[in-house]
């Protein structure tokens, strides 16, 4: 069968640095082609070439039989290619519907937008995604999860023949992911081809027909999803084989270091339900404490509250090693030995105008002072230490942070917080966009931290992850604690059941 998309010996360089060395890639009509690879393998770059974002590259791109080279994203769109970028691309001020149809608004007599039609179409699509907020609210009122759904809806609204999804589920929980999969399957049955990029291998087995594996800017294998075992796949990605399933060894101590009592966070908007409602729990020294819940369950809000964000809306008692903390801002939290890795990398994680090193040391500058001055030596040393501890893939610490691949950016952020030597480490979606290999290292690293006595509280939308590494898992439902499981008793089913909204 003639492939819908065929890319041959694609070469792409950024300011002289080659990141794609002759990639081969093809997608058949009506198939779901998974594209996997380590962070920085070049997946997103390859897809940006398909979508016409990058114009300067060498190689052949055949779409629907004929050789093409898209001068702009628009051209690719018109050719029938839709893409969901790895980073969210929405206009905060515009409504959900306006965002979905931006640049393609249905208009009457030249230029006048037909809002009725637009909202109707938007509603239909978002319903298929079980998105229950109105499509007429600005996306700025959605959290990252909701926004991810809008991105997906936007891509669907193009009803393209080739749909590229670059880590669409990274902000979605299992439940929403399921919804997405049904949509994907339906599209496939309608003959739409889909390129599906994800670091969650189990997802691939659920929906992918074939898998293309990339490593270091090269294609290292194409095979049918059912023909390859998870283990083989991983070793193909990382170029060596290793223990695939991480098992957390080592027990946390008995003594409780972190105690939360009746934590409540009111919603700034009067009338809406409290974001957090009377939450109490305890974390022991060296424990890895997981927080599960559906999108909107308030995990992020909880971690924020523990970090002193929006303190004026928060009530309740927080104790660290027996001392009550009265956190009115993040600074005090950091001084108290708490660190928060936020879930929104671009929004409130990175400083894009700073280079890798500066991003990494931002929160720990105090340690680098020498006679009240930042000592470049110390700074460089600290950065290098963490770069190889977390094996961050960066050519030069002086490079702009944006030149790193998504996963490596995430690692830099983690390093940034580890550099503050926290006693309690709050992680919101720490493995978002991190490849299996890196994840594995991360797990090992986290448990090493735990061994050293650091208490870790993490949320993740990937249940298997929580299940494998957490000593205990607390489930949130609409801002309330709905269940608390020990490592042994916790199972996917129990958690999902506890998380599902009370009927």
């Amino acid at each position, binding site marked *: 069968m003639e492939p819908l998309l065929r890319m041959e010996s694609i070469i792409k360089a950024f300011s002289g640095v080659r990141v794609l060395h002759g990639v081969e890639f093809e997608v058949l009509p009506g198939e779901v082609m998974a594209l996997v690879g380590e962070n920085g393998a070049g997946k997103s770059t390859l897809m940006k070439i398909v979508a016409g974002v990058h114009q300067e590259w060498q190689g052949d791109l055949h779409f629907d039989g004929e050789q093409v080279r898209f001068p702009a994203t628009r051209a690719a769109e018109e050719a029938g290619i839709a893409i969901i970028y790895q980073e969210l691309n*929405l206009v905060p*001020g515009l409504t959900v519907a306006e965002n979905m149809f931006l640049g393609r608004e249905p208009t009457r007599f030249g230029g006048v937008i037909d809002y009725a039609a637009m909202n109707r179409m938007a509603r239909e699509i978002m319903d298929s995604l079980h998105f229950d907020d109105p499509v007429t609210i600005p996306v700025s009122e959605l959290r990252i999860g909701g926004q991810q759904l809008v991105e997906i809806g936007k891509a669907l609204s193009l009803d393209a023949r080739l749909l590229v999804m670059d880590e669409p589920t990274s902000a979605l929980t299992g439940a929403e992911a399921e919804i997405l999969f049904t949509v994907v399957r339906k599209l496939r049955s309608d003959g739409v081809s889909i390129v599906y990029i994800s670091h969650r291998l189990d997802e691939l087995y659920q929906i992918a027909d074939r898998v293309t594996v990339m490593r270091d800017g090269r294609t290292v294998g194409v095979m049918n999803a059912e023909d390859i075992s998870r283990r083989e796949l991983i070793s193909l990605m990382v170029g060596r084989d290793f223990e695939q399933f991480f098992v957390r060894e080592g027990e946390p101590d008995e003594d409780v270091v972190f105690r939360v009592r009746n934590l409540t966070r009111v919603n700034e*908007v009067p009338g809406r339900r409290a974001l957090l409602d009377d939450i109490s729990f305890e974390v022991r020294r060296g424990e890895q404490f997981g927080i599960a819940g559906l999108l909107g369950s308030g995990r992020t809000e909880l971690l924020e509250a523990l970090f002193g964000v929006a303190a004026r809306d928060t009530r309740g008692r927080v104790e660290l090693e027996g001392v009550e903390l009265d956190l009115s801002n993040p600074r005090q939290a950091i001084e108290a030995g708490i660190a928060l890795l936020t879930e929104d990398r671009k929004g409130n994680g990175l400083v894009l105008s700073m280079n890798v090193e500066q991003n990494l040391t931002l929160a720990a500058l105090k340690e680098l002072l020498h006679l009240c001055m930042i000592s470049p030596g110390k700074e460089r040393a600290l950065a290098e230490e963490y770069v190889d501890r977390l094996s961050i893939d960066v050519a030069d610490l002086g490079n702009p942070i944006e030149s790193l691949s998504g996963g490596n950016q995430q690692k830099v952020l983690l390093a940034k917080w580890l550099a503050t030597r926290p006693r309690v480490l709050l992680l919101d979606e720490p493995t978002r966009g991190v490849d299996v290999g890196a994840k594995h290292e991360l797990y090992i690293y986290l448990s090493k931290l735990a061994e050293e006595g650091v208490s870790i509280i993490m949320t993740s939308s990937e249940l298997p992850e929580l299940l494998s590494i957490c000593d205990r898992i607390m489930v949130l439902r609409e801002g309330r604690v709905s269940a608390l499981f020990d490592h042994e008793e916790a199972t996917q089913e129990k958690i999902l059941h506890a998380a599902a909204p009370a009927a």
Partner: protein
Amino acid sequence: MNGLDEQMTGTTSTARGLARRLGPFLGLIGILLAGVVLNGQTFLSLYNQLNVLGRVSIIALPAIGMTLVIISAGIDLSVGSLLSLSTVACAMLLMEREWTRATSITVPLFILFALMVGYFIGRGILIHKGHDRKRADIVGLIAGLLMAVAVGLWSSAQVAHGFSTIAVLLIIPILGLFLGAFNGVIIAKGRIQPFIVTLGMMSAAMGLAKFIAGRGGQIHPIYYQSAGYSAEGTVNIAPQSFDFLSSQVVIHFTLTRLRFGRHIYAIGGNEETARLSGVNVDRVKMMVYGICGSLSALAGVLYCASYSQGKPDAGATWELDAIAAVVIGGTSLMGGRGTVIGTMVGVLILGYLGNILNLQEVPSEVQDILKGVIIIGAVLLQEGTLLWWLRGIKRKRIS
């Protein structure tokens, strides 16, 4: 940014959105009440009201244009100079009966404009009719040339006996359109911050104004008695009010209903996304700055009409007034948010403020101080920050 607002001010975009929407109106009501309380009848008198309207109707136009620019996350410092430039050009066109620098700069632009319009319309129609582009191009070109010739003849006919009111109303805004669009081109194609580009234009246009006004390199304002566009007495604010009301309505409609308008918001909100979504960012920017420029030029004509003079420094520092009005009107300088109605309210607030202070015979230096305080106060109020502080205090007391 918005995320920041939410987390940090503790008011969600809806809440502060509300404050933003209501703030200006509250401010206006406050000012009006103050006016009534302080000056009672005098303030309310139709005469006084018309005066204020007449005054603000000029600054209103650049302010409206500025609203578009600011919503697109830009800024335009050149409106003041463009206004000055066009007062000079306008006055000369109306007064002189020979071929002057004013004519030799405006008329060619006018003709060029006619050419372009003719071309695009002609071409558009044919393409719409489904003819092939080549054909359309040729026909368009012919149409354009015809229009150009017509316009050329007409405007050179004007020169002989001084330009008519309609003529200036047509020709001057086009001068502004081109200069504004030039801003847009540099900003869009050169990817340079609007602030600095328009700062450059500010200086250049001012120089141009002096140059045009100057005879033999010397400069002086041109006064003319027959205030072409203005009737006698208070009536003369009518046409102005008409101008600015109509342009307000048009722009408001553009922003709320037109694709072009929404794209301005999109660019202001997230330019990269807009671009990736296939919005023709560069063209939109060009148009936005072009519109802003032409509105400023139109304001220049009104200025000429109501003060029967053209002066190279007529609009000095007006850009700041315009921006102040826009911001007081609740449009965010971060771009992506804002309304023209808000801007009108902002303009009125500033207008009434000056009026009331004058009626109170407040000395100028005190007026300056008060103005500063009130500008800041207005924004504080409307950002909902005050409310938020109060809330915080209240909450503290509870716990």
